[in-house]
């Protein structure tokens, strides 16, 4: 019964979305108030119906209703409850349902919160949002129905891929989708503005919180995925330049560019048409990401559903929305004249450079990702583009970005002088050089990566602190707490980027690895740590069998800790997973993995010392936190109408 209710609600949601796509759009064009107002209840109804559908599917998973094909294929009675729930989106059909649920959630949020939005603009935004909903609901209903039944219900299910039975991965997709789909709001605002033919500071002020929220969610989603790879894959890699990772990384870079260009529109009414283009491309790349994951056109370790029919459907959606928006853009962008002048050395100039670097680096990632596909189609050559290429091609842009960021962040609007900005940054510069020298002295191999990365990271953190400090003027600390939250958010995010720089470069340059056969009771030394394999025992888990080792780690005779690396075998899918034992530290992670028993006795053991590993995710967390702090800035709360009415932000009709 559940499944049928869910299916029925989904069909109703499709009908509502068709209404939401057409009626408010016509109303806005004709100026019919009733039709314009119908956008809000439609958006709420669409969300409510999809939520019912989602709850119905979740119930089928929780109650292990194996007469539903999807549940049979992706669940099992012995699975812990949390993974029964996360199993809902651990497969193609269910994850698409989550995708449209979040899409409708954003639409409903725009209907409820943006109280100051002019009704016509809101009607158009929600209509575009409705159109995206129509496309993806049709995709689900016609090619990926999650509610299909089996003729006879099997006794038990086939279980979820054990690699996905993990807390980090349970929450990775929802956050990623919140990010991807959040960019649909920026897209809808851009298309609505093109239809209206007007982009102004008020528009930027509305679109920016949505972009900021989407960017924060993307940051969290990407970081969770990378953190999961770090502890789950058994050798501590954190980024693979895999096509699907790139698919989430490109929208992240473009959303980062959009955030900054929207500031220029908001403050100076410049870069309007470029900002519109960025908004279209950011969501376009989210769709490309969806296409890459679903179509299986680019082979990837993530491949979800290698189904050409679905791929073609998504390609059609992509072509319609991005192609349509770009056509509209070509027709209307000329009308968006920039106002105001500025000198090359100014905040505007710096933000233009920021946009160039972020957009071109996204382009480089894109070219590298699709190159194997192009080579195969045009020249019938099977080749690969992997980490060595991306590290070379992508890094220079990040280096350039890091060098100019602290300078640009402090330049005044309109016209600035480097002579004025440089003196206060002397401190961070000396600090960065000191860190670089220290790293150079400590490194044995004198890796340029470690020296440059740590130096630039320190420069970013130092620059952010100085920027924040200077904003207090002469009044010092007391004023620090009264600074606008947007200033805090900026400083926190920028220093987060610096912290991630330091983590990535020092981890890559300084990691120590040891692979060996260890007998039970044997002690061996890795990078100054004495590691003893004390015991290895078999123990059954909830829905798996585990081999658990006990390893004692000491340094200079003092005990550091006892770690328990695990190896699990999930019998239902006959799949092994490694559960590395990690002792996190501020300056190093100890990372131990237990392998196979060896023919001559003993066990294969891998041990790693990973310096500054946690800084990678600490930095990502800071970036996300900075975004959230900025999002809580007073101007957005006012713009959202949460406090007092703010007539100033209403654009003149």
């Amino acid at each position: 019964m559940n499944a049928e209710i869910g299916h029925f609600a989904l069909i109703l949601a499709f009908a509502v979305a068709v209404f939401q796509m057409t009626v408010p759009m016509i109303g806005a064009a004709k100026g019919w108030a009733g039709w314009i107002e119908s956008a809000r209840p439609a958006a709420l109804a669409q969300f409510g119906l999809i939520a019912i559908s989602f709850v119905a599917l979740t119930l089928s998973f929780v109650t292990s209703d194996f007469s539903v094909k999807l549940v049979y294929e992706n669940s099992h009675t012995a699975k812990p409850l949390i993974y029964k729930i996360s199993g809902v989106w651990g497969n193609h059909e269910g994850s698409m349902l989550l995708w449209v649920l979040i899409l409708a959630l954003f639409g409903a949020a725009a209907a409820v919160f943006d109280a100051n939005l002019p009704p016509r603009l809101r009607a158009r935004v929600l209509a575009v949002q409705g159109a995206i909903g129509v496309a993806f609901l049709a995709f689900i209903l016609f090619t990926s129905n999650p509610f299909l039944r089996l003729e006879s219900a099997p006794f038990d299910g086939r279980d979820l891929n054990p690699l996905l039975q993990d807390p980090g991965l349970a929450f990775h997709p929802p956050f990623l989708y919140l990010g991807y789909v959040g960019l649909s709001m920026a897209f809808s605002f851009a298309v609505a503005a093109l239809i209206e033919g007007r982009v102004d500071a008020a528009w930027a002020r509305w679109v920016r919180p949505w972009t900021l929220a989407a960017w924060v969610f993307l940051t969290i989603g990407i970081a969770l995925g990378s953190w999961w790879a770090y502890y789950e894959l058994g050798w501590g890699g954190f980024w693979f330049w895999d096509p699907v990772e790139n698919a989430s990384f490109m929208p992240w870079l473009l959303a980062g560019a959009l955030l900054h260009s929207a500031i220029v529109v908001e403050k100076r009414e410049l870069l309007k048409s470029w900002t519109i283009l960025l908004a279209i491309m950011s969501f376009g790349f989210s769709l490309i990401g969806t296409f890459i994951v679903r179509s299986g056109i680019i082979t990837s370790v993530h491949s979800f559903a290698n189904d050409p029919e679905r791929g073609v459907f998504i390609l059609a959606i992509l072509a319609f929305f991005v192609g349509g928006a770009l056509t509209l853009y070509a027709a209307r962008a000329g009308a968006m004249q920039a106002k105001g002048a500025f000198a090359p050395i100014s905040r505007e100039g710096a933000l233009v450079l920021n946009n160039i670097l972020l957009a071109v680096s996204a382009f480089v990632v894109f070219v590298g990702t699709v190159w194997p596909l192009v080579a195969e189609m045009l020249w019938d050559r099977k080749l690969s583009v992997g980490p060595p290429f991306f590290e070379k091609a992508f890094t220079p842009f990040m280096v350039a970005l890091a060098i100019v960021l602290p300078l640009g962040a402090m330049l005044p609007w309109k016209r600035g002088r480097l002579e004025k900005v440089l003196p206060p940054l002397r401190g961070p510069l000396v600090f960065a050089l000191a860190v670089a020298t220290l790293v150079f002295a400590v490194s044995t191999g004198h890796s340029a990566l470690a020296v440059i990365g740590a130096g630039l990271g320190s420069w970013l953190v130092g620059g952010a602190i100085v920027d924040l400090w200077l904003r207090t003027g002469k009044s010092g600390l007391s004023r620090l707490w009264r600074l606008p939250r947007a200033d805090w958010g900026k400083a926190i995010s920028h220093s987060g980027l610096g912290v991630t720089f330091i983590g990535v470069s020092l981890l890559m340059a300084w990691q120590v690895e040891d692979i060996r056969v260890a007998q039970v009771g044997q002690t061996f030394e890795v990078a100054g740590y004495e590691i003893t394999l004390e015991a290895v025992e078999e123990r059954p888990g909830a829905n798996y069998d585990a081999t658990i080792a006990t390893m004692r780690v000491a340094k200079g005779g003092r005990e550091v800790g006892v770690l328990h690396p695990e190896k699990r075998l999930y019998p239902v899918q006959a799949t092994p997973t490694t559960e590395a034992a990690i002792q996190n530290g501020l300056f190093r992670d100890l990372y131990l993995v237990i392998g196979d028993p060896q023919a001559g006795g003993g066990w294969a053991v891998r041990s790693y010392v990973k310096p500054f590993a946690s800084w990678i995710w600490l930095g990502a967390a800071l970036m996300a936190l900075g975004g959230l702090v900025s999002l809580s800035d007073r101007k957005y709360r006012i713009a959202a109408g949460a406090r007092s009415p703010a007539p100033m932000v209403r654009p003149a009709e």
Partner: protein
Amino acid sequence: MRYLILCLMLLVAGPALAVQPDEILSDPALEARAREISKVLRCPVCQGETIDESNAPISRDLRLYLRERLVAGDTDDAALEAVVDRFGEYVLFEPPARGINWVLYLAGPVMALLALLIGWRFIRSREGAEAEGDALNPEERARLERLMRD
């Protein structure tokens, strides 16, 4: 994510680590060279991992073959070429910068130059532009900005 790893792992009879202790060469210098070369060699069936990270049996074949070549006295380049000859261009993680692959390598720099040029022209065009249609002068705008913030 990483669904295909499932397939890979199913290919392996039991749980296995990537580089096995029995594969490691006794000569540390030679082993270090093998590791360095492995960074640009892709596991042919996993498609996202290097041969050192992969658990697939074919990656083990690649690792062993590479070490065989190095022990036989090949230089790094010769060993890499031998592996590519045997397993195909596909296992190279970084396509050689030859022929049409130059497009891949030059796309980024060319795009960057183009973007910088366009950006610079835009900035120059703004530099001279008077604030046409801008009813407020800078001081008024700044004041308005302050008012809006409070």
